[in-house]
């Protein structure tokens, strides 16, 4: 059979010209749309790298701002953001994981757990400035923590919780039910089963959720605006009850509040925040893909 005949033959079994055109158009449309979604992130990242990278120097990363923040570095804002992120992790990670373990492993489907779930979903939808005001009212004023790392971390924790809870719960539910049945059939208690089999298997998923949650906390301005961020401080915070400078709020300040601010410092600061957040994102991606490669069920 010649090649031409073979092609002829194949054609008879494929769709008619009209269908093929529709398929091609649809495919092209979907490709175009997916490319469109990539364009903004590429533009943002490339633009900020081009504009911000020249400002980056050892001095910029390790020195305090000088001349009314118009020169010098951004060291205290980097330290502050790390403090806030760690502070948020201290509260939100144990709470979030505990809540997810309860929901995924212990809770039965009743009115009470449905209420908890609805609360979590709604918590995720609350605008961040509302968290800021809530934290201000509860932690700064009522509990008298003052404008402090502690108050800001707690506020960010509440904002982060829904992300951590829902991703952790998902990771726990992805662990095959058979592992639980086997463990229980060998005389394991529920808690032994969770601790020895379920949680270890869920760790990559949990870590991904934790990092994604903390990454959001690290980049937020509104929740720390009223609760812990300072315009300028001449020294690093000494205790959790001190206020701190932080990258996102600093960007807001130098972009809108300081006249005569050199544009390069603004872009440099944005660049550092972007690297911080995307770096966390990259870690999450690596953890996830490593775990997926290792998984054998």
């Amino acid at each position, binding site marked *: 059979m010649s090649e031409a005949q073979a092609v002829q033959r194949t054609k008879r079994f494929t769709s008619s010209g009209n269908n093929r055109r529709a398929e091609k158009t649809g495919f092209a449309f979907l490709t175009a749309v997916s490319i469109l979604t990539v364009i903004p992130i590429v533009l943002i990242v490339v633009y900020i790298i081009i504009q911000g990278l020249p400002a980056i120097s050892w001095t910029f990363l390790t020195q305090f701002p000088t001349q009314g923040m118009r020169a010098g570095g951004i060291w205290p804002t980097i330290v502050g953001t790390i403090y806030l992120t760690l502070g948020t992790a201290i509260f939100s990670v144990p709470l979030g994981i505990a809540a997810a373990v309860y929901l995924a492993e212990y809770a039965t489907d009743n009115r009470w757990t449905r209420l908890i779930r609805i609360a979590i979903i709604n918590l995720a939808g609350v605008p961040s400035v509302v968290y800021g005001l809530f934290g201000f009212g509860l932690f700064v004023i009522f509990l008298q923590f003052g404008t402090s790392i502690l108050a800001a971390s707690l506020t960010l924790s509440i904002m982060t919780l829904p992300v951590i809870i829902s991703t952790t719960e998902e990771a726990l539910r992805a662990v095959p039910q*058979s*592992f*639980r*049945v*086997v*463990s*229980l*059939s*060998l*005389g*394991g*208690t529920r808690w*032994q089963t969770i601790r*020895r*089999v379920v949680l*270890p*298997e869920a760790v990559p998923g949990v870590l991904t959720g934790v990092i994604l949650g903390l990454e959001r906390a690290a980049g937020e301005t509104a929740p720390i605006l009223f609760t812990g961020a300072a315009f300028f401080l001449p020294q690093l915070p000494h205790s959790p009850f001190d206020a701190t400078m932080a990258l996102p709020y600093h960007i807001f300040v130098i972009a809108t509040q300081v006249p005569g601010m050199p544009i390069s410092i603004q872009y440099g600061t944005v660049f550092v925040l972007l690297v911080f957040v995307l770096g966390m994102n990259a870690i999450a991606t690596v953890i996830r893909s490593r775990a997926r490669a290792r998984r*054998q*069920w």
Partner: protein
Amino acid sequence: MLKIEIENFSLRYGDGTESLRNINMGIEANAVTVLFGPAGGGKSTLLRALNRLNDLTEVSSISGKILFDGQNVLDPATNVIELRRKIGIVFARPTPLPLTIYQNVSYGLELAGERSRARLDSAVEHALRQAELWEEVNDRLSDPANSLSGGQQQRLCLARSLALQPEVILLDEPTSALDPIATAKIETSLQELKKTYTILLAPHNTQQAARTADYAAFFLVGELVEYGTREQLFTYPKDKRTQDYIEGRFG
């Protein structure tokens, strides 16, 4: 001697599916008792009732008694943890835990609080020998369990139950995912194991029932149709339904 006595036992699931109706049977110690019949007959349900694994499923009603050494296991006061250590189970599909070969076998003992490395080592070796797996894995005990073949995994699951030195072993279609050679290995070890343990087996076909049984019970849609020795059931079945099933007229 009867190891387990099932009296007027009935069970219905929450969604109204598979159920058992008024089961009465005594399970002989140190013998292989086979529960066979078409799918949906309640064999699995009965096995899982014996060590209370049914607790994990929505069960809407349960009645009657299951006496294990004279104690009613259905009694809410029963210590299910202890019960499951005494009545081990092997499932239809090999289900190694995501741990090493060694850790899979030592798992139950460690949960029971065994800390001595020496005792764990010897228990693991003994259990793997009983499941006739030791020769194949003794040089790679710290490999992940799912690096083993399906048949090896299933024998590992058997070893895992044996490590707890149970009194009864439940096997729920343990060879349904295995090839004939792996199946034969499991069946052979059963003949050795019944000297020490009481074995209940839901076989994955009638031939396996006939090959392995000392006693056999024929289940049909939640009912125990006929129960007796292998000779009685497979040579002179009394019930027409048993005979039809064994001869392959339905199923």
